């Protein structure tokens, strides 16, 4: 299995994301934002957390126009798997690969919590099968712009089609509509999520509850 992790200027979770893929058995390629193509035989692309291009204009807006994201859009268009975490989620919405937008947290404060309780809503995807539907998990969150918003018909459609992958268990610390923490594309192969699974892959650093995402993904891709 081959994962490519993109680094934008201002990314700061790219190393952790590469390490999380590696731990699950992936061969990992580091990809630079100016690259115009992904390495050959890539099975999944990871867009990491951080502050790409200094969050100028809007979080993820400049990254969404970068050469590598054009290649990622083509890859997703061919049915490739893409995981965007935190700033990566913002990039996916700005690039039009996922619906909706991530706005400034409703309470205006940066929220940083080591283990935010979440419910896995859809356990049938390559990303979430390791947890399973209905699983209660806890992952770190750390963001200033994680307030997921879309118009009501879009939210209804996402819920109706099983495209809400993750929900905050009790309340969304960022004000997200319907407590949405993670959203899937129509084909279920693009996942954007604000919580950080890559920061929770080793009990020695607090938690390994995020490891199931990468292990489940490796299993799904190997079986495909």
């Amino acid at each position, binding site marked *: 299995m081959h994962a490519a992790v993109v680094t934008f200027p201002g990314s700061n979770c790219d190393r952790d994301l590469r390490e999380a893929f590696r731990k699950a058995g992936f061969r990992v390629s580091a990809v630079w934002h100016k690259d115009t193509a992904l390495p050959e035989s890539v099975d999944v692309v990871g867009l990491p957390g951080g502050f790409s291009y200094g969050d100028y204009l809007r979080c993820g807006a400049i990254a969404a126009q970068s050469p590598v994201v054009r290649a990622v859009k083509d890859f997703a268009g061919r049915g490739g798997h893409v995981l965007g975490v935190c700033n990566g989620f913002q990039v996916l919405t700005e690039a039009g690969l996922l619906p909706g*937008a991530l706005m*400034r*947290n409703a309470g*205006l404060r940066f929220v940083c919590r080591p283990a935010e309780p979440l419910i896995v809503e859809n356990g049938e995807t390559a990303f979430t099968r390791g947890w399973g539907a209905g699983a209660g998990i806890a992952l770190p969150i750390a963001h200033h712009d994680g307030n997921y*918003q879309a118009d009501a018909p879009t939210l209804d459609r996402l819920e109706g089609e099983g495209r809400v992958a993750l929900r905050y268990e009790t309340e969304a610390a960022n004000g997200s509509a319907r407590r949405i923490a993670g959203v899937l594309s129509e084909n279920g192969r693009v996942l954007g999520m604000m919580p950080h699974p890559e920061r929770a892959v080793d009990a020695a650093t607090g938690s390994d509850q995020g490891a199931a995402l990468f292990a489940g993904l490796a299993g799904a891709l190997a079986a495909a």
Partner: protein
Amino acid sequence: MKATVTVMLKEGVLDPQGEAVRAALGTLGFEGVESVRQGKVIELDLAATDRAAAEAEVRRMCEELLANTVIESYRVELS
């Protein structure tokens, strides 16, 4: 030619920053501020001389980058 783009959150989209500014103005003793909406202004210096073409071009810039039309609306003024 100069283009001024004003980007605002759409009507109905909650603007917590504007709300915080409104509350702060109240704290300073400014009464009667019923609501505050915060947006951004982007100024562009354009080489174009054709007004209609320039406006069409700037609107495309807004659609593709300057505004996120999921949550924001924009206004273009040329001078």
